[in-house]
């Protein structure tokens, strides 16, 4: 587990990696269980009500109760469901989420394996999960599930591209695709300062990858009534929920490391791993609170609006970002970082105003008000 620290008396790195994996899965399961509690409390607070309070102090036992209940639920399978797709759907979604955790450096010396291309590995693995959605959608042989599955595939694929383009911008600036060295690069200034446009694109694309509220079309309750997971019950369904929260952790960690400087930025690396862990989790919770807040306050986009937003807005802006980075890196003007900051900031401002104005640009007549005393003739 501790690559550079004393190695628990076990020499072979493989056994240590295995030990680290077991510890991570245990920690991640507990962390995910309490993510459900955390989410219900925060969304309840936004909606002016108390979250679960009756089961244990402050409802802390609620996630355990939910998990136990789901464990013992009867596992129904629709008679005419496709058995192979049905069984493997869970693993199709579950495995990529936990694979991504392997390459994430929690603190300077707490990481399972240091891959030279860990950023590339993370993006590639997180792109795998849409196969699981398709299998779940097709396997459960219900029209809603099929519709949800198709929408999930379309959304995940088309939001993978802006995510990768934003990351390419980052890699161009830091000249390395290893998350560890990207963090080391940000010891003086976090990358969000140099790449605000890249940060915005990453943020929206990550919400879409997680299928959180503004983009939760595959599992939207009001249209597709639970979409892909409509036929799953009991422990199988809770696996899907588990992976959606693991993905949330992974993407908020990724955002914290790449854009906010991870455990490096204000205090540097020599501070003890306790502070580093605290710093990382603080930045991670910034992202998580944003995801939960988005879930409580944003209505859902329509499928065609979602697609046009990805292809017509996010990808062109990401390409502009990469072009600007390339320009400055090749010509290397004296104040490279100043230019980077200015150009990317302008790009971010252009993106925000475009989105803000896109709906308002069409002039719309206000309501006509007719007084009730005047015998106003009818308009028809």
């Amino acid at each position: 587990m501790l690559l550079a620290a004393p190695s628990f008396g076990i020499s072979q790195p493989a056994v240590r990696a295995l030990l680290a994996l077991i510890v991570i899965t245990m920690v991640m399961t507990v962390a995910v269980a309490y993510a459900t509690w955390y989410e219900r409390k925060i969304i309840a607070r936004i909606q002016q009500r108390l979250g679960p309070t009756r089961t244990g102090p402050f409802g802390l036992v609620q996630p355990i109760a939910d998990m136990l209940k789901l464990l013992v639920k009867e596992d129904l399978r629709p008679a005419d469901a496709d058995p192979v797709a049905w069984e493997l759907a869970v693993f199709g979604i579950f495995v990529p989420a936990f694979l991504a955790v392997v390459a994430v450096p929690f603190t300077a010396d707490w990481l399972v394996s240091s891959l030279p291309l860990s950023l590339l590995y993370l993006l590639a693995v997180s792109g795998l999960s849409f196969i699981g959605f398709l299998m779940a959608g097709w396997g459960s042989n219900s029209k809603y599930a099929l519709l949800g599955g198709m929408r999930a595939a379309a959304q995940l694929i088309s939001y993978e591209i802006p995510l990768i383009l934003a990351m390419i911008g980052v890699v161009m600036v830091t000249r390395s695709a290893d998350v560890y060295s990207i963090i080391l690069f940000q010891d003086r200034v976090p990358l969000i300062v140099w790449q605000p446009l890249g940060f915005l694109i990453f943020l929206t694309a990550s919400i879409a990858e997680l299928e959180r509220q503004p983009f939760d079309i595959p599992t939207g309750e009001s249209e597709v009534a639970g979409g892909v997971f409509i036929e799953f019950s009991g422990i199988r369904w809770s696996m899907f929920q588990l992976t959606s929260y693991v993905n949330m952790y992974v993407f908020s960690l990724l955002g914290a490391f790449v854009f906010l400087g991870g455990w490096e930025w204000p205090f540097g690396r020599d501070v003890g791993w306790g502070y580093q862990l605290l710093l990382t989790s603080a930045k991670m919770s910034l992202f998580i609170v944003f995801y939960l807040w988005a879930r409580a306050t944003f209505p859902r986009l329509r499928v065609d609006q979602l697609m046009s937003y990805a292809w017509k807005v996010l990808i062109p802006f990401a390409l502009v970002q990469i072009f600007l980075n390339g320009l400055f890196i090749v010509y290397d003007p004296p104040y490279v970082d100043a230019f980077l900051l200015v150009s990317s900031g302008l790009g971010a401002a252009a993106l925000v105003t475009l989105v803000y104005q896109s709906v308002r640009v069409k002039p719309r007549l206000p309501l006509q008000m007719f007084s009730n005393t005047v015998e106003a003739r009818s308009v028809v």
Partner: protein
Amino acid sequence: MAEVIAQKAPPATTPEKQIEGAPVVVPEREKTGVEREAERLTPAPYEPGTALYRQVLPGIMQMPVDALLAFARESSLWPMTFGLACCAIEMIATYMPHHDLDRFGIVPWPSPRQSDVMIVSGTVTKKMAPAVKLLYEQMPNPKWVIAMGACATNGGPYTRYDRVLQGVDKIIPVDVYVPGCPPRPEALMDGFIALQHKIMEERSK
């Protein structure tokens, strides 16, 4: 224009009741709509499954596991978003800030597969009864039913109209009856607490 594939209700096949030796004397006359509907309203069977640990663990070991699972089940009852009539408005009011059901760990889920409790809130008419029965059968097994309001209990103010089913327990077994027309949100919460006591008491079955 794509021809409309109207989803007709499945025509009820008239079962041939061949009692041995008795010649079929009466020619089978065309069943009227009322009789065909009566066949659709047969009560849903209730077959309680036995959990795996009950077959494996010896008697003495089952006690703590029963208690633990009963606590887990009672403190995370997930009802289905299924409102019928006026009682549905009071059910929604119970989820809202003034009387928050989320405190009991009760979160409404859209699909019957992920829910344990079915709150029948409103009048069950004979046209809706087959749908209610189908939803009940789709729910995974440790499931309970709360009949909310007078209409679900015995037809309520509409009990004398022949299109209304006099009580939902004619088609699905009901665990808790909540009186009132519509019952106050506090009454529904009291129904949930009664259900929790019932789960605790029935844990050894």
